[in-house]
Every structure is written in structure tokens, then in C-alpha cells.
């Protein structure tokens, strides 16, 4: 499988690998998985009191495209508010990384991980209020 330069770059130097404290009220955790390839992705975001994402971390087990997709979105997420984050589409990720059709599901995984992390955060903060 020939990977694009951007995929290789993220794969070899993944940005923002790591974990945030999932018990922190300002941290949302999203976990998703793609049965077709067995990939598992964990994406975490931390928002400040203004609701702006100030940090994002990921841990992904999967192919180069899945790792690159999650690495890329952690970069994109920083500085965005939740509404802006919700607008990130898998097609944007696929386009940026020049993913071939068979790897589109990796970008779907990353988009779904963002949505899951935001849902987790909103649920936490709703309970808190």
C-alpha cells in the first residue's frame, strides 16, 4: 500500500499521542472501533472554561491511515470550540491526507471519535450543572 507523504509524516511523527485525565470534568473521551479492520481509536479533548479546546490527545491501534487520521484531527481540534469541532468531516480528513478509497473508513473513524469525545464531554458537563 502506497501511503501519501502526509500520511507517512503523521505516521512517523504522530502528533499528540497520549492520554488526558478522563475523570477531569473538562475532558471528553471518545472511543470508537472499526470491525472491518480491527482498528481501535481513543481521542480525548480538554476544553477551557470558555469551551475552547486547548488540548487533544489520541491513542490508536491500527494502520498508518488510521494513525495519521487521528494525529491530524488532534492538530485541527486545538483552538476550536465544540461547534466548530463538530463540523470536521471525514471527507476533509481524507482529502488532506489523500487517502485512497479503501482507507476512507479510517477517516470515518476519526470523525466519529471527535463526535464521541464531544458527546462524552457534553454529558459530563450537563450532569455537573
Amino acid at each position, binding site marked *: 500500500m502506497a501511503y501519501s507523504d502526509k500520511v507517512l509524516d503523521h505516521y512517523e511523527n504522530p502528533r499528540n499521542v497520549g492520554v488526558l485525565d478522563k475523570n477531569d470534568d473538562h475532558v471528553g473521551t471518545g*472511543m470508537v*472501533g472499526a*470491525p*472491518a479492520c*480491527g482498528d481501535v481509536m*481513543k481521542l480525548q479533548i480538554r476544553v477551557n472554561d470558555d469551551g475552547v479546546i486547548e488540548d487533544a490527545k489520541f491513542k490508536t491501534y491500527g494502520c498508518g491511515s488510521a494513525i495519521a487520521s487521528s494525529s491530524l484531527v488532534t492538530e485541527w481540534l486545538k483552538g476550536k470550540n465544540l461547534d466548530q469541532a463538530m463540523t470536521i468531516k471525514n471527507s476533509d480528513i481524507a482529502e488532506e491526507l489523500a487517502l485512497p478509497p479503501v482507507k476512507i*473508513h479510517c477517516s*470515518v473513524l476519526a470523525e466519529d471519535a471527535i463526535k*464521541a469525545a464531544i458527546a462524552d464531554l457534553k454529558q459530563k458537563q450537563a450532569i455537573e450543572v
Partner: protein
Amino acid sequence: MSQTHFQLFNLPQTFAIDLAALDTQYRRLQSEVHPDRFASASDAEKRQSLQLATQANDAYQTLKNPLQRGRYLLQLKGIDTLEESNTAMPTVFLIQQMEWRETIEDAQNVAQLEVLQQELRDGTKALQTKLEAALDQNNDDKAATEAVRQLSFMDKLLTEIDSAIEQHDN
């Protein structure tokens, strides 16, 4: 295709399967459509026998493998397990998957990997039992779909651990 894989081999359309009967039926069918038998047949007959031989191969591979058999049974009911597009899985399951992958990554020796391999095989067995109950007894398509989706992950993990063990051996 008018005939299901089960009909092709005269087997009941259930997850529980008589593997010996499947083998026997497959061999019988393969000998019936063997190209040697059609050496002097017309082109149309040759084509038809080749088609049947291909179908028999596909059917055999599908029915022999528990994951593929489960997926196929759901397909026959018109249910797509959406393994490409639906990424929502139970969190507990995904956390377990992550932990298992971390264990593979951190394993120092083959013995540690083999302990995990056994755990994965047991987990796979348990899921197959669930799948059989969901399909054959409870007619619970939702539970069956979930079991197929989870088995798909287990399949991948078992392949990964096999190659990890191979790497440690070398």
C-alpha cells in the same frame, strides 16, 4: 444466486454446523463438477460446471469459518453488520481491545504472548457461543450482529498475536 450456500450442501440454515457433513458434501460436489468430467462436454456445460465449482469453493470457505458463517446468516436475513461504516462499539469492549493490544506491544517473551493468545481464543469461543444462541435459539438479530462485529475484532487480534509470536521466535 437462487441457491443459498446451505442449500448447495444440503445443510440446515443454522449457525451450529456439522463440519464433517460439510466436508463430505463439499468433496462430493467438487468431484461432480471436476473439469476432467467435462473434457468432452460443450462449452456451455464447461462454463456451468466451472461456475458451480467456484460457488462451491466460496460456500465452503464461508460456512467453515464461524465469523463468516454468522455474517452470512445475517446477510440472508437482509441484515448488514456495517463493519466498515458503524464505529460505535461498547466502551468496555474497546477498552479491553486496547489493553490486549498494549499487552501484545509490551510482551517481553513468547510465554506472555501465549497466555494472551489463550485468553483471546477463550474470548472468541465465548462470542461464538453467544452468536449461536442469538441465531439458532433466540432469533435475536441485534445480539447476533453485535457478536459478529466483536468477533471481527477478535479475528484481527488473533492474526496479530500470531505474527507477534512468530517475530519473537525469530
